[in-house]
């Protein structure tokens, strides 16, 4: 029997095409490169200078690479400023692999095309239509709207409404799960009010749990509810993806654990036998448009946080597994 992990067909969809999974190196699974609130591109007081955006992002990616980083996953989906051609140029010039995502959500972030279509009555899109839209972005390539398709998406990312999953959010989650199931890329969910509930929705679409990453599990309310451990027990990946949130000045500072608490949670999950389910990321925003900056280096996880977690007892082997092995297994197309 051959070891599936060394089979040559194991690859990950990056913006420059499929890359052998073992080439990814250190991966940050939940980050944003160019992040544009839908509609902001039409605002009278906003101009997006592509050359300037490129320069800022190239610098941040180079810093990430110099800190030992290998791959950035832009997990903002298809309707939040994703610019595939820019990401291709960035990846070529910095040598950092860039995985871009399809998907959308939560409901509030959708265009009217999906919510009030030109039908009578204006029924919001059902799951199967979202599944088709997202699947096409993986199998036929990500869209440059009304122009062309580029490389395939490496991830389907969706988000539920913070106050709780709406009916349309549920269609998005089911559609994302079906797209992941049918194309072999993983799905990333950012839960609304209840992480385990929202995970169960995608699992009920016959998607294996190890194809799912649940983001935001370092949110205080989720930690208080015991969600990180519950999600790991179900076999899904636990993303503690607001690393560094306490070093950025934001209104919602209290919503997430501090890095000290987060590191303790990592150690706790490892001790509970879930080292193979932990992912770390920052949800940093490379360039933020139409929203406050969230200016944290992409290298924060590997340069600052992981050394700190090691000082609390995280082993080198587990650290390596969390930074390299787990994201590789998640992102490998099945």
């Amino acid at each position, binding site marked *: 029997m051959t070891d599936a992990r060394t089979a040559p067909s194991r690859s990950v969809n990056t913006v420059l095409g499929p890359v052998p999974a073992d080439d990814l190196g250190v991966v940050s699974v939940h980050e944003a490169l160019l992040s544009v609130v839908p509609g902001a591109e*039409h605002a009278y007081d906003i101009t997006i200078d592509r050359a300037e955006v490129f320069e800022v992002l190239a610098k941040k990616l180079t810093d990430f690479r110099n800190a030992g980083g290998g791959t950035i996953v832009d997990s903002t989906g298809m309707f939040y400023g994703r610019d595939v051609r820019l990401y291709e140029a960035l990846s070529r010039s910095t040598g950092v692999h860039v995985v871009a995502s399809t998907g959308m959500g939560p409901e509030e972030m959708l265009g009217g095309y999906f919510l009030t279509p030109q039908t009578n009555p204006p029924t919001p899109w059902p799951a199967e239509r979202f599944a088709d839209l997202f699947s096409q972005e993986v199998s036929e390539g990500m869209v440059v709207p009304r122009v062309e398709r580029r490389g395939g998406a490496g991830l389907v990312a969706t988000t539920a409404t913070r106050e709780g999953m709406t009916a349309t959010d549920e269609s998005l989650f089911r559609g994302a799960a079906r797209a992941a199931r049918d194309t072999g890329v993983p799905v990333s969910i950012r839960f609304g009010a209840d992480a385990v509930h929202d995970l169960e929705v995608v699992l009920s679409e016959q998607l294996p749990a190890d194809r799912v990453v649940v983001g935001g599990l370092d949110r205080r309310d989720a930690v208080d509810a015991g969600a990180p451990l519950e999600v790991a027990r179900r076999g899904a990946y636990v993303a503690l993806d607001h690393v560094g949130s306490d070093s950025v000045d934001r209104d919602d500072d209290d919503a997430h654990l501090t890095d000290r608490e987060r590191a303790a949670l990592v150690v706790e999950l490892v001790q509970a036998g879930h080292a193979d389910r932990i992912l770390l990321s920052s949800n940093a925003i490379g360039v933020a448009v139409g929203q406050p900056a969230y200016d944290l280096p992409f290298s924060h996880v590997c340069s600052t946080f992981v050394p700190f977690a090691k000082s609390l007892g995280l082993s080198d082997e587990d650290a390596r597994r969390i930074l390299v092995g787990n994201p590789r297994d998640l992102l490998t197309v099945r």
Partner: protein
Amino acid sequence: MSKVNTVLGTIPAEELGVVAVHEHIGYGMPGSELDSKWWKTPEQRYEETVPKLRAFHEYGGGTFVDVTGICNGRDVDYYKSLSAKTGVHIVACTGFVGGDTALPHFARASVDYLTRQFVSEITVGIGDTGSRAGVIKVGVSRGGRMTELDKRIYRAAARAALTTGVPIMTHLAIDAETAIAIFSEEGLPLDRVLFGHADDGVNAEKTRDTWIAEQGGRVGFDTFGYETELEDPPFWARPRKERLDHFLRFIGQGHLDKVLASADANCSPLGWPGVKGHTVNYVFEDLIPDLREAGVDEATITTIFVDNPADFLTIRT
């Protein structure tokens, strides 16, 4: 001086000629650009659009008012090239077709911010095109009642209209009491507002057209041609004769000075199939002949298609 903003610059209102006051070069709901089933090559787009505008011009059409709002595929650089090559004046709009076509950046915005957006597009230009908007589009979201966001947009539009002198056009004239209350609170004279789609198949029954005219508002019979007689009519279609009778009845009630007419057609739809056989040229090929046949005289036709729109579109200073 009577001036109107077109995509190629400011022109005298005297130059507008026959106006199709509520039209679309191409309309798509926000997000439809992500669905490649609707994509067309640039060649296709020009091929579908240019002959219609050329025919419009040859029929004697002077001005095409495009009311494709922000986020609906409004493409001013494209309109500029179409206008320059066909000789048709094109007026572009600022504003939104309805709250449900405003993307989150605008859906979350205050009345003040929306006002600044509209004023900027009217006085500075739309994006980096240098073209100034000539009308402000607002509308009622799907569902029949104005939403909180619709109301914010109407109020911002009223303020921008007062500041700039550019008029407002509405998508749908249902829930007009709410709209008129907002315009009155803001002190906007109602002859600066065209309440549109008073004639459409779904909403005509629910639209208080004569009441709006009595309040001083202008009334748009501007979905002419969306007929149940078409091969594949849309859900807002209406029998041809019923619409025409409605229009003639309204004029007969003494509201000629308040009326405007148009076809609301898409030259090349962006995010929907469009309606086969329906174009802006319905105005010349069907509507004006029907009016003549019904005994409407030439002076009245000129009032509807030339004088009223010129008065409405002229920037009021």
